[in-house]
């Protein structure tokens, strides 16, 4: 570890991992608790459409992804009330449509499409330092907004109808949450790539969930879990000389299954074969 810390790229990777854990912890907890995993997946895969569009228009693909995901999030927000039951297939359509659109854009882009693989699979080791500043800024935005608006966010997340009777602008808040998810997705694309974004967003929250009774607790716990997973993952990938993104995810998945087993054991212990008062 000490040796690896001598390299700037390794330090930036750790910094990117830690910063993104904060986003994962906060937004991921909200996503898991509100069963919005497929919404997050839809937004993150639609981001590929933005990357493709970025290449096609000759602008920075990350900038393309940023604006495109914000647009898709707004569109989902506008349609989600209308679609009633069929939210799953609606999100699926955005998911697939965004991806397909991205591929189409790429195929229409003459000339170079460098770094495509790194957008798909991520490359935390070579996050440009400019992007690190951007990630830090977005982190600050997410933390600041959620900290300021926490009581309202919590009330809306738990019971949107009651919150709306209480005079909270629930629709605006829902849009805000979708936009924050979009922002987080763009941050995370740098770390693990589009394909694994939802995993990094939801794994820490899913791991911590059985141990926390409050949303705030989950957010903090998931942030710490995320920091553990990303830094340990990066370190393990250093030791075994394997790609960091997938190491981080595999570590998260392993931890998740361990927690599942642990819960199963606890459940068994709490359910003795025959029990009488």
């Amino acid at each position: 570890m000490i040796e690896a810390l001598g390299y700037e790229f390794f330090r930036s990777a750790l910094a990117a991992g830690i910063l993104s854990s904060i986003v994962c912890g906060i937004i991921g907890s909200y996503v898991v608790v509100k069963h919005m995993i497929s919404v997050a997946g839809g937004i993150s895969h639609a981001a590929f459409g933005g990357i493709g569009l970025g290449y096609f228009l000759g602008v920075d693909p990350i900038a393309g992804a940023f604006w495109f995901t914000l647009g898709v999030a707004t569109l989902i927000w506008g349609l989600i009330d209308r679609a009633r039951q069929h939210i799953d297939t609606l999100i699926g359509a955005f998911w697939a449509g965004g991806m397909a659109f991205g591929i189409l854009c790429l195929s229409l882009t003459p000339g170079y499409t460098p770094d495509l693989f790194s957008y798909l699979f991520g490359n935390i080791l070579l996050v440009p330092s400019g992007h690190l500043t951007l990630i830090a800024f977005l982190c600050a935005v997410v933390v600041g907004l959620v900290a300021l608006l926490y009581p309202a966010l919590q009330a809306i997340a738990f019971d949107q109808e009651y919150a709306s009777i209480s005079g909270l602008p629930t629709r605006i808040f829902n849009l805000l949450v979708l936009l924050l998810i979009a922002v987080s997705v763009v941050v995370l694309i740098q770390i693990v790539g589009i394909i694994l974004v939802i995993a990094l967003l939801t794994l820490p929250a899913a791991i911590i969930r059985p141990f926390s009774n409050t949303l705030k607790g989950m957010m903090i716990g998931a942030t710490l879990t995320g920091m553990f997973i990303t830094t340990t993952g990066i370190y393990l990938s250093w030791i075994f000389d394997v790609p960091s993104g997938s190491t981080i995810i595999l570590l998260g998945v392993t931890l998740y299954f361990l927690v599942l087993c642990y819960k199963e054991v606890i459940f068994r212990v709490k359910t003795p074969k025959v029990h009488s008062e």
Partner: protein
Amino acid sequence: DTHGSDDLTVACTIPPQEEFIRAIAGESNISVLVMVPPGASPHTFEPTPSQIAELEQADLYVALGSGVEFENRWIERIRELYPELTIVNSSRTIPLLSGSGHGDEEKGTDPHVWMSLTNAATIVRETCEGIVEIEPGRKDLYEQNRDTYLEQLNQVDGLIHNSLQDLSSRTILVYHPSLGYFCRDYDLTQMAAEEAGHEPSAQGLADVITRAKTLGITFIFAEPETSTRQAETLAKELNGTVILISPLAGNYLENMQEIAQKIAGH
């Protein structure tokens, strides 16, 4: 084939081959199909339906034959679709280098054969043989054109040799290891961030950085077809700059000289 001898169609994999074929063809009417278009990488490119359809017109496919990934998968499929199409392996006789920047035999062979003027001469000879086989009637013309081009290759080789002779630092840092044959020809050492087609791992990166720092290297050669953003980041760590080179450019002779100049200039 229904085509008369006046409009021969030759297909090849990468843009530099087009120059070879046109040089051999000279004045005669040969159309060339390049499968991997400018800007795409033969390591990852997938052809479009119209390209596959156009191949029906082709009389000859000149394959690089050095294990470039596009060919590994597609030559078989093309052979299956167009059994009549003649396919020649233009680097049949070229001894291939090991694949990685670290000389690791297990990582396969280096497919970037065309990045050497001596290899190019062999490729041109094989290509010519293939074309003559298809159209024996113009054998003399083609062989004459070939020899002219071989002479040019030889000249440029000499020029580059001279320009690189007095380099103080004989190790060059590339992001994508495409200069293996080039470095062999001119007694240079290639140090690559990418390992045999994979984005660098943490340790590989650390290793490259350490060695580059020891050698005082501050320039990193990268290709616009692959990762330029990552190369920038690496350059930042070395307090250096990225220099773009394009081994796949169509104007082969000019381009090779340009690459040599860039290497010599830094």
